[in-house]
Each structure stands twice: as C-alpha cells, then as structure tokens.
C-alpha cells in the first residue's frame, strides 16, 4: 500500500512541480524581506527570514488535498479501493506517504531558507546567529508545519472530493475567512484556529499578534486538525458508494 502510494507520486510530474514552488517561495520571500529594508543586524529579522520555511506549507497543503481528491478527479480511486477495500487503510497510507514527502520538502525549504538568508546577510554585512536555539526551532517548526499541513490536506481532500472546490475552500479559509472568524471570536480563541496554530509552529507571525499558542501547542493543534479531518472523512467519504 505504502509502496503503491509512493509509485503513484513518482510516476507523475504535477506533484513535484507543486512542491518545487516551496523553495522558490522561500527564496523570493527572504529576498523581498531584505530588499524591502529588513534590518540584517536585528536577530528577529533573521527569524522572519527563516520562518519562510513554514510558509511553504501552503503548497504541501494543496499537495495533500490532491492525494485523495486527485484520485476522485481521475477516477483512479476505483482501482485504489479495489486493491484495498478497507478504505481507512488507504487514508492511513496516504497520510504517511504525503506527510513524509512533505517533511522532506520542508527540509529542502529549510536548507534553501538558510542558504538564502546566509547569502543576503553576507552581502549586507549582517551577523548570522547559527548557534541560537531560535534559529533551529524556527527551521524545525517550519519543517513540521510542511508535514502537518500535508496531513490536514489529505483529510480535507478526502472530505471534499472535488479538488478545485477543496483547494478553493482551503485557500479562502487561510486568506480571508480565518481572519474574519478570528476577529469575531477574539484573539483568545482565534489562536486555536489552524492558520494561527501554523504561525505558532512555523514562528512566522505574519498577523503580528502577540497571542499565539506556544510553538509546541501550535504543532499539537495542527495534528488535532489533521486527525479531525481524517476522522470526518472516515464517517463520510469512506462509507460512500463509488459509482
């Protein structure tokens, strides 16, 4: 099952193009930060630069969505269920394969983030703080965010089986809806929402709110979301007739 899922990934091009967007985003993001006047002598700028690793999770989220929804789109899901009539095993295999692949993609992004940051800091005469715990926590959190959002994507794509609808819903949530919901419920509750939890884990703090969960709390929260979506899919999609 696991080997079959890996083969599905390695025999088509689309997922790799998608994952390749991550490092590009990181390079562009770090460059933009410096070019727009980021102070390379400020340690918090260094953290913001490295935190682009976690922002690449937007691509692993889509990558994860396509795990199940993509199979419904091309009707290959029939063959998948014929091979494994116990459908929960299919979801479990996809969670591991997509999670692992996304962690690897996140690792690549973290390397790229570090190299790009080092290059710009050298260029601008900044001092890179490699030994600081903050540096490694930011990079590790970014890798974990890539992995966790892929797992969330697998659940979302299993729940909403139309890939276009699933991706649109996910992106709309992160770009717009979560911000509005966050304001409605107040920052005390908002920090439990997935985007804020992702910010806590990746230490990006785009929304500049002071009330994020601790990093580990953000990670646990994302795992809980991934489990909730996978469970919801288990009660709906996995029981539905495939016609």
């Amino acid at each position, binding site marked *: 099952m696991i080997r079959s899922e890996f*083969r599905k990934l390695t*025999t088509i091009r689309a997922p790799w193009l998608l994952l390749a967007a991550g490092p590009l985003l990181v390079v562009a993001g770090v460059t933009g930060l410096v070019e727009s006047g980021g102070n390379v002598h400020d340690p918090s700028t260094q953290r913001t630069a490295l935190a682009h690793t976690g922002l690449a999770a937007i691509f692993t989220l889509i990558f994860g969505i396509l795990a199940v929804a993509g199979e419904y789109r091309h009707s290959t899901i029939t063959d*998948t269920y014929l091979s*494994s*009539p116990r459908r929960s095993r299919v979801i479990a295999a996809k969670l591991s394969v997509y999670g692992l692949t996304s962690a690897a993609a996140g690792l690549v992004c973290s390397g790229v983030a570090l190299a790009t940051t080092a290059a710009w800091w050298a260029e601008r005469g900044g001092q890179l703080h490699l030994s600081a715990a903050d540096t490694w926590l930011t990079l590790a959190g970014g890798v974990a965010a890539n992995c966790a959002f892929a797992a969330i994507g697998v659940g979302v794509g299993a729940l909403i089986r139309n890939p276009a609808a699933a991706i649109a819903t996910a992106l709309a949530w992160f770009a717009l809806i979560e911000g509005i919901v966050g304001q409605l419920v107040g920052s005390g509750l908002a920090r439990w929402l997935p985007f804020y939890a992702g910010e806590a884990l990746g230490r990006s703090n785009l929304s500049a709110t002071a009330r994020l969960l601790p990093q580990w709390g953000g990670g646990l929260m994302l795992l809980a979301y991934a489990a909730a979506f996978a469970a919801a899919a288990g009660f709906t999609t996995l029981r539905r*007739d*495939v016609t």
Partner: protein
Amino acid sequence: MAEIEVRGLTKVFGRVTAVRDVSFTAHAGMVTGLLGPNGSGKTTTLRIALGLVRATAGEVLIGGVRYASLDRPRRVVGAMLESTGFHPGRRARDHLRVLAAADEIPDRRVDEVLDLSGLSDSAGRPVRQFSLGMRQRLGLAAAMLGDPQVLVLDEPANGLDPDGAAWLRATVRDLARQGRTVVVASHVLGEVTRTVDHVVILSAGELRFAGPLSEIGQTNDALESAFRKVTT
C-alpha cells in the same frame, strides 16, 4: 472453487431501486453473460460484488467470502469497470506497477500482462495518448495482473475495433477454459452468443432469466427475441 454467488441482492439509491432481490451464481470454468438494457442494474450488481457500493439487502460472495474480506483482492478477483480511470500523465506500465505494488504482485507480471494485452510497444506512453480501445486493453491487463481465479468485466468490448473484439473473445474463452470464473456484463447481444455459456438477464433491476445460453437461444436472432420477451 471460486464461484460468484449473488444472494437476494437489493440496492436502493434514494428513491430509485436499482437492484431488487436478485440471486444467481456464476460458476467456475464458465463465461457468464450479465445482460440487460442500460440502467437494468448490471453495473450496480458488479460494483456491490467488488465492495465499491454497499448493498441495501443481500450480499455477494466470491469463493464464499465478501470482497472486502479478501486479503490480496487483486490476486483473487480481477475487475475491469467502465468508470475505472487512468491518470492521463502516467505511463501505461507505471499504471500497472502502481497496482502491482498495492497487492504485492511482482513487477515481472506487469510485462507479462502488457504482452498478453498487446500493449508492450505502447507501455512507455502516457495514457493520455491512448485510444479508447487501448484503454480497454490496459483495463483488461490490470484485471489479469493478479492472475485471478475470478474475472469481472463490465462492457469490455466498448471501443474495441474488430481485431480487438476478436482478441477479447479469445481471451475470455481462454480464461474460462483454464477453470476461471468469468462474468461479462454487456448490452451488446451480438458479442454474447459467441462468448458466453451461461446467461443472466436483468431488467429494471429484476432478474428475468438465469440459465444456460442453449435454453434461451444459440443464434443472435433467437437471443434477441428471447431478450425482448423477458425484458419487456
């Protein structure tokens, strides 16, 4: 012996009863033709047999167990369904390698079934370049991948040219001669008289006839008039 036993099968989709209390058996060493007009419940019956659709009542047993209880299902039952899809960018050989890995079938079997289905020369091409007939051949290759004792083929002749149709007939006959259980669903009667031993006719979700082909008519004309009689 791996028979397919359909027992008191009923399936209701919303307000539509697609299959109503249908029972029949497909025996080993025979080709069973599952016939009926469009919408008669053939595909639904086969999908229930393969665990893709849940029965409202009744069950389908393959060699005495339900499909969902099979350990390596592709090694027991090979299926070719109309709605089975291919990723357009995936090469034919890779498509089969994906399926082989899921059921722990050795990769050399992939080349064997490519050969059997006459696709060896096109195996490196992405499926988007395949004609409908070639897709049908790839579907049949996938069904044969696990060297199964039971084959379930839904409208396998669709899109095949005369050569392809002749190849399909020979392959199906051959599989039955080797002692396998073969079920072929079709609404094309002409194909049937030359291939099947046993006939099951559905109409509006109900069983209208189940028995040897000789009982209903050996020639196309005889089968067609008998078919009209039982389905109207």
